[in-house]
C-alpha cells in the first residue's frame, strides 16, 4: 500500500511543478498563437540561474526565485523585441523554425558557457532532508517546498490574468488582437508582457527543479516535450487546464510505481521482470499522441 500512496504523492508533487513549466508555454500560445520550441531552454536557463546564484551566495536555490524570475522576465522581453516581433509577421513555418533556431542557439550558448557535464546542488537547508509521513511514505523536503512554491506561483499568475487590468488587457489581446488595439490596448506591449510572464514562470520552475534535478545544457528538450503534452492535454491557452493536465502528467510519469505496486501485491514474477522505469516518459508521449488524435482541443481548450 505504501508503494501506491508513495507513487501517488510523488506524482502529484512533480505534477505541480510540471504544471508551472507548462504555464509559460500556454500563456504565450494563448496570447500570440505562437509555439515556443525554446521553452525547455528557458527552463534550462532558469535552472542554471538558480544553481549559480545559490552557489554564489551560498544559499538554497529555493531562495533564488526572485533572481530567476527577473532573468526569465528579461529573457522573454528581449526575445520578443529582438526576435519574435520580426518572425511573427512571417508564415507559420517561419515562426516554428524561428523558435526552433532560438532553441538551438540557447542550448549551444549554454554548452559554450557551462560545458556539457551535469551540475547539481549538493548542499543547502533542505537538500537531503525528507519528511516521513507515516505508512512508509517519504517525501523529500526540496520536492515538497518546490511543489508548494509552484502552486503559489501558479496562483499568482492566475490572479494576474483574472483580477488585474493588465490581465484583462492580456486576455483581450488573446481573444482578438485587432479589437483590443481598437480599444486602445497597446497589444505590442501585451505580447511582450506575455513573453515576460511566460519566461518568468518557466525560469521559476527551473529554479525550483534544480533543487533536486541536475542540470546540463541538453535538459530542455525533455521538458519541452512534457510541456507540449501538458498543454495539449489541458488545452492550448488554458491556465486551469495546464494545472490539471500537469497533475495528470505527473501521475502518468509514476506509472512504473503503480506497476510495482500491482506486481508486488499479486507477487507476479512476469510483472516484476518488466523494466517499467526505463519507459517512464513513454506514457506521457502516448497520452500526448492520444489527445492530439482524439481531442485536439484538449480538455479545457478554448482556442481552435
Amino acid at each position, binding site marked *: 500500500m505504501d*508503494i501506491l500512496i*508513495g*507513487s501517488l504523492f*510523488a506524482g502529484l508533487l512533480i505534477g505541480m511543478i510540471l504544471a508551472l513549466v507548462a504555464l509559460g508555454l500556454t500563456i504565450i500560445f494563448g496570447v500570440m498563437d505562437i509555439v515556443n520550441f525554446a521553452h525547455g531552454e528557458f527552463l534550462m536557463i532558469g535552472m542554471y540561474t538558480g544553481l549559480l546564484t545559490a552557489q554564489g551566495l551560498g544559499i538554497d536555490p529555493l531562495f533564488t526565485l526572485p533572481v530567476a524570475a527577473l532573468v526569465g522576465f528579461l529573457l522573454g522581453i528581449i526575445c520578443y523585441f529582438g526576435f519574435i516581433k520580426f518572425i511573427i509577421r512571417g508564415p507559420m513555418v517561419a515562426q516554428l523554425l524561428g523558435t526552433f533556431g532560438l532553441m538551438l542557439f540557447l542550448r549551444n550558448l549554454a554548452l559554450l558557457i557551462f560545458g556539457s*557535464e*551535469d551540475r*547539481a546542488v*549538493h548542499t543547502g537547508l533542505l537538500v*537531503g*532532508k*525528507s519528511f*516521513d509521513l507515516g505508512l512508509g511514505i*517519504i517525501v*523529500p523536503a*526540496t*520536492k515538497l517546498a518546490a511543489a508548494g512554491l509552484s502552486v503559489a506561483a501558479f496562483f499568482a499568475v492566475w490572479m494576474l490574468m483574472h483580477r488585474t487590468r493588465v490581465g484583462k488587457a492580456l486576455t483581450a489581446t488573446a481573444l482578438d488582437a485587432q479589437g483590443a488595439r481598437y480599444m486602445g490596448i497597446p497589444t505590442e506591449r501585451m505580447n511582450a508582457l506575455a513573453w515576460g510572464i511566460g519566461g518568468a514562470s518557466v525560469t521559476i520552475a527551473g529554479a525550483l527543479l534544480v533543487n*533536486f*534535478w*541536475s*542540470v*546540463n545544457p*541538453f*535538459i530542455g528538450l*525533455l521538458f519541452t516535450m512534457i510541456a507540449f503534452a501538458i498543454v495539449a492535454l489541458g488545452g492550448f491557452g488554458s491556465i486551469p487546464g495546464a494545472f490539471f493536465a500537469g497533475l495528470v502528467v505527473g501521475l502518468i*510519469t*509514476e506509472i*512504473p*510505481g503503480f506497476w*510495482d*505496486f500491482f506486481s*508486488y501485491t499479486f507477487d507476479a514474477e512476469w510483472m*516484476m*521482470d518488466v*523494466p*517499467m*522505469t*526505463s519507459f*517512464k516518459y513513454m506514457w506521457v508521449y502516448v497520452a500526448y499522441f492520444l489527445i492530439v488524435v482524439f481531442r485536439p482541443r484538449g480538455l479545457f481548450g478554448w482556442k481552435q
Partner: protein
Amino acid sequence: MKTFVKSWISVLSVLLMMVFLAPAGTMAAEEIKIGVIYPLTGGAAAAGRELRAGAELAAEIANSTMADLPMTMAQNSGVKSLGGAKIKLIFKDHEGNPTLGADQAKKLILDDKVDGILGCYFSSVTKTVSAVCEQYGIPMINGSSTSPALTERGFKWFWRTTPHDKWFTKDLFELLVGLTEGKVKGVKAIPKKDIINIASACEKTEWGSHVSELIKEFSKEYKFKLRKSFLYAAKSADLSSEVRSLKASRADVMLFASYTSDAILMVKTLKAQKAQPKIIWGQDAGFEKPEFRETLGDSISGILTRTVFLPKVVEIKKLAGQVNDMYKKKTGNDLGGASARAFTGLQTWVAVLEKAGSTKPADIQKAANAIYIPGKELVVPWQGIKFASTGNEMGQNVLGSGLIGQYQKNKDGKIELEIVYPFDVSSADMIFPFAGF
C-alpha cells in the same frame, strides 16, 4: 693529393668497419622493443600518465638489479635468458580512439619492428589493436581492459592479466556467500534469507547493460532472488522513480553499475528516500571516483565498491609497499589501479620473454601459454598469473581477482576505502548491515 685520398679511404673504411662491427660486439645485450599504446592525451590523459609511469617503473626494475625486491625480474639486469637484453619501451598515444590505436599498432609493428605490444586501457582500443596484432602474428599483453568479450574471441596472440567484469561480479556473490558462511572479517554468519533478495540498477550503455546481465546470471547460479533489475540512462537528471522502484522491491542487497554523476544522484536519492538495504554495492566506476567521496561525504560510510587496487594493499603486501615507494619517488603519487596493473602487465612481458629465451613470436606464444607467476611476486593482490590456453576464455589470466572495498570512517574522521574481499587480505571489519543514511 693521392695520399690524401688514400688516407681518407682508410679512415672511411675503418669507420665503416666500426659501424658493422659495433652491433656484433654488443649483440649479447640486444634491446627488446615493446610497443606500449596508451591514452596519453585527451580525456583519459591523467590515467594515461599513471599507466605510462607504471610500465616505465617495471622496465627500470627489469633493466637493473635490485636484490631486495622479491621478484624474479629484479634479480638480474635485463632478460637473462636473452643474454641480459634490456627492455626498451616505445610509447604511442591512442587518444581514446580505436582507429588511431590500430594505426599506431601497425606503425609499431612495421616501422619500429617491436617484439610485442602492451596496452591499451580502453577496451574499445584494445579490441582493434589486438585485431592488428592477431593479423600480423605479434604477441600482445593487456593489463587493464575489463570488457569480458576481449578474451572470448579465441585470439592466439592476445593475453590479458587483469580480471574482467565477470570476475568482479562473481566476487560480489562470493562475498555474499561468505557472509552466510561467517567468512567475512568482523561479521558473524548470517542466515541466507536475510540477504537473499537482490535488486540491481545499471546504466544502459554497453558496460552497464553487460553488468546487469552478469548479475542476472550469477544470482541464478548462486541461488539469490533478483527481485528487480532495470537499466537507466546515465544522463538522467532525476532517479526518484527508479529509487522508489528499488525500495518497493524490498531488496536486502542493492547493486549498481553507474558512472560518476549518476552514482552521486543515485546515492543522494536513496538517502532522500531513506532507503535502507543491508548492502549497497557499486561496480567501480562512479562509486570509486574522488567526486563521489567528496560530494557525498560521510553518508557513504558502509557502501561497497569493487576495485582492483587500493592504497591499503600497500600496507598488507610488503612488495607492493616497496614498489609503491619507488613509484612515489618517481611520480609523487601512490600506486593506483591503473599504474599497478600497467606495472603488472609489463612484469608479465618480462617473465614471458625470460621463459621464451627468444624474441620469435612463436616462442613467445608458447612461453605465454605456459607462464606462471606466483602471487607473491606481484604488486596486485592476485593469486598469480597463469593464462587459459584452451576453452572459451583463451588468454585470460585465471588467477586474478578483484577487491571489494567498503567506505569506512577512520580514526581521524576521514572516509577511506577498506578491503573486505578477498577475505584473506581484508584490512578492516566489515560494516554489516548498512547502517542507513
